[in-house]
Structure formats: C-alpha cells, structure tokens
C-alpha cells in the first residue's frame, strides 16, 4: 500500500473498512517452522481451525483444506492440539 498523505486520510481515527489485514499484512516472515498437514489421514475434526490464533487454517464445508501461509506465524499450536497428530512442523526453507 502506498503511504497516504495527510489529506488522503479518513476523518477521525478510523480504518474505514472491515477485516482488511489477512493476506495483506503478511506475517509469513515471522515463522521458523511451518505446519504441514497430511490430508489423507486428517479426520477433519476442526480442532486446529478453532484453536488457530491467526485464522490461518483454510476450511470449507467442515473440511480442512490446508494452511494460509501468508497468515500463519508458525506457532505450532495446530500440531500440538491435533488429536490424530497429522500436522507436522517443518523448518522453513527460504
């Protein structure tokens, strides 16, 4: 985003839209490890999704699809809470 000049700001002290940070303010650089899921063994229990602090688990129709790596900070909570241990934290190769 280009930095706005003072006369381009909204009135007041607001962000005049909702939820614009995901995949725009990118936090993937925060990671040392990244989660990788084995979808073949995944039971789609949604525990990783409901426990993720960063809304970084992609889900649809009650199914786990994988991770939003732009939003994932690599905390490892998903792997820790996975009841069937199908999420592995692997070192980032950059």
């Amino acid at each position, binding site marked *: 985003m280009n*930095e*706005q*000049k*003072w*006369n381009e*700001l*909204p*009135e*007041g*002290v*607001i*962000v*005049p*839209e*909702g*939820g614009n940070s995901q995949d725009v303010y990118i936090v993937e650089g925060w990671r040392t490890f990244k989660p990788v899921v084995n979808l073949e063994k995944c039971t789609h229990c949604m525990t990783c999704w409901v426990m993720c602090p960063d809304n970084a688990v992609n889900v649809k129709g009650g199914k786990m699809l994988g991770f939003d790596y732009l939003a994932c900070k690599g905390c490892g909570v998903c792997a820790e809470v996975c009841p069937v241990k199908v999420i592995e934290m692997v070192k980032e190769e950059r």
Partner: protein
Amino acid sequence: MKVALETNQLIALAMKQIEPHVVAAYPITPSTEVVQEFSQYVANGDVKTEFVPVESEHSAMSACLAASLSGARVMTATASQGLAFMWEMLHIAAASRAPIVTIVANRALSAPINIHGDHADAMGARDTGWLQLWAETAQEAYDNTIQAIKIAEDPRVRFPMLVNYDGFTTSHAVETVEILEDEQVRSFLGAAPKPKYSLLDTENPVSFGVLALQDYYMEFRRAQAEAYKNVKDVVLEVAEDYAKLTGRKYGILEEYKLDDADVVLVAMNSAAGTAKETVDLLRKQGKKVGVLKIRLFRPFPVEEIRCALGNAKSVVVMDRAYTYGGPSGPLFEEIATALVNETNKPLLGNVIAGLGGRDITMEDIEHVFDLGFKALEKGNFEPLVSWVGVRE
C-alpha cells in the same frame, strides 16, 4: 418568552429543548444542577433521551464518545476536577471527531480545593482539541448551548465543543433571559446530521480508535489541524441563522467601544460585563477605553484579534487562570502570539484576577485600565504580569 431561572436550570431547559439522544454525566459543583434538572425531564418523560448516570467523569466522557461515534447527539456537563478527570478522553474525543457538547460551569482546580468561578479548568483543556465558546451572561450561556450543537455537528466541523460560563457567578445566578419555544429550538437544529460511519452500522464495519505509529501519527495530526480552519465560518453562519430567529447576534469576538480606544481590556465570561460597565463609567471621565470579549476561544481567532486590537495603544489581557511557572496567564500568551509579528503592535500587559471565585469588581477593572494608561506613560508594562485583587 422571558424567564428567570438559575443558569444551570436554564441550561437544563436548553438541553430539554435540544433533546439529545444520550446524556452521560456525573455531578460536580457548580454544574450539578444541569444534570440533576435534566434527569427530572427524563423522569417526567419530557424527553426520550437515554440518561446514563455514570460512576465518574472519565466514564462520562468515555460513554459520550462511544455514543457519539454511534451517531447519537450527545451532551454532558462538568466542571473543574471533573473536566480534569476527563482530560485523557477529551483528546480522544476531539481526534475522533465526535461532536459532543459539554457544558462547563468554570471552576478553580485543586489544591486548595475550591468550588468557585475560575477559568483554570477550561484553560487546562485548551490544548485538547475541543472547540470552546464562552458566555458573559445567562442569556449567552443559553444561546451558546443551542448554537454549539449546530456548530459541532456541522459536517465541515465535527469537533466536540465546551460551552463555558462562570461557576456560581453565572451558574447559580438568576438573570432575565429570553428563551425560545421548544419547537423553535428543534427546527433550528434539525436532526443530527448522520456521520459517514457509525459504530452501529454492522453492515459496514469500521474500526474506530486505531493505532497509528511513526508512519501515520503525524499525518493524522496534520489532518486534524487543518479541520479547525472551517470552524470560524460555521460559527458565524450559525450565529447569523440564530440572529434571524432571535434577533440576538453573536460574533467570534465582541468589541465594545474599541474604535477609538487607547487602552483595551481583553476579558472572558462574566467579568466582561463588569468591564463594559466600567468602560461606560471611564468614558464619562473622558478616558478612551474599550473591552474585547472573546466568545470563540478555540480555535483561537488570530486574525480577528489582530484586527480588533489594531488601533489600540495599550492592551491589558485579564486571565482568570494562571500558568504555573509559565510566563503569564494562558489568554495573554495566546493574544501575544497573535500579535507577535504585527509592526505597530500595542503595549501588552497581563493581569491575573478573580481566581477561586474572588470577585472582580468595577474598582478592580478601573485599576486594570489604570495599569494600561501607566504603561502608555512609561512605554512598557512593568511588571508584565500583575495580580489584581490579591492581598499584598
């Protein structure tokens, strides 16, 4: 219609006529009766206002801010320690562009604790971003209260506003006041203009009160600074509309016999009336004196003041507050700044008077004019700041 009401009751009546959506307030002398009387209107069902009897002034302003950002017309009242307790929230409300109108019965700040008239409270709020109107009489307090709503809510303004009048001297005085009919007030104000964004608009979620770091804070401040430039025009437009309705015409300043005045006293609130009376007395003695009364103190009307004081030879600024450890009273600092680059500027002096409810009498004001004349003889004010009415 003419009424005789204590000014605080009168302002409560004005609030009834305005019928704000939300009033959140906490009692404090000498503004208590404003809220107390208004709560009776609520209890009687005379207004549909949601009254929030908060547990502190800080919460009063916090609740007012959230309500204002929700698109409500919002008022409160306070004074002294209460306004000081709001201090943090005053900044946030102004920067948030929340057009809250706060009634202030000006009172001294502690310590020593004192409940009487003094401008230290509003002067302490002078750099919070709030607009400020000041009133000499009960009539002006009433008229300013109604006009403040319209000024603050104008889409070109959208800033919160303090409506000041002197504690006890005005707040607890009964004077003859001409009031409007409820309907006149309501049609003059109309519905509160809808803000572009509202906290209650769940369809269009907006984040209010966000964080801005080194990369944006200064742009936010610059934008806020710019917005004050619209205020004076709106104040004058609203005053003109109000004059059409009432015949009472207000400006940004009130100039009293300034045209040929050699010595001018600058004053605010009730002392300005005493000063006018003194001017009439001194004029009979052939002394060319006048009074400049500041009605709009924030934003500070620099050009108007330059213009009003252009012909004066000696100007004495009367502060009913003091800036501890500072060079002078706060009003003087601002007047001096307004004139700093003028080529033919008058001699400038400052008096501190009326702190903590000490009377400012006609004799005091004669003495102040005398200081102005003496400075003309000597070529300067020496000392720059004099205390008037204090036991030496």
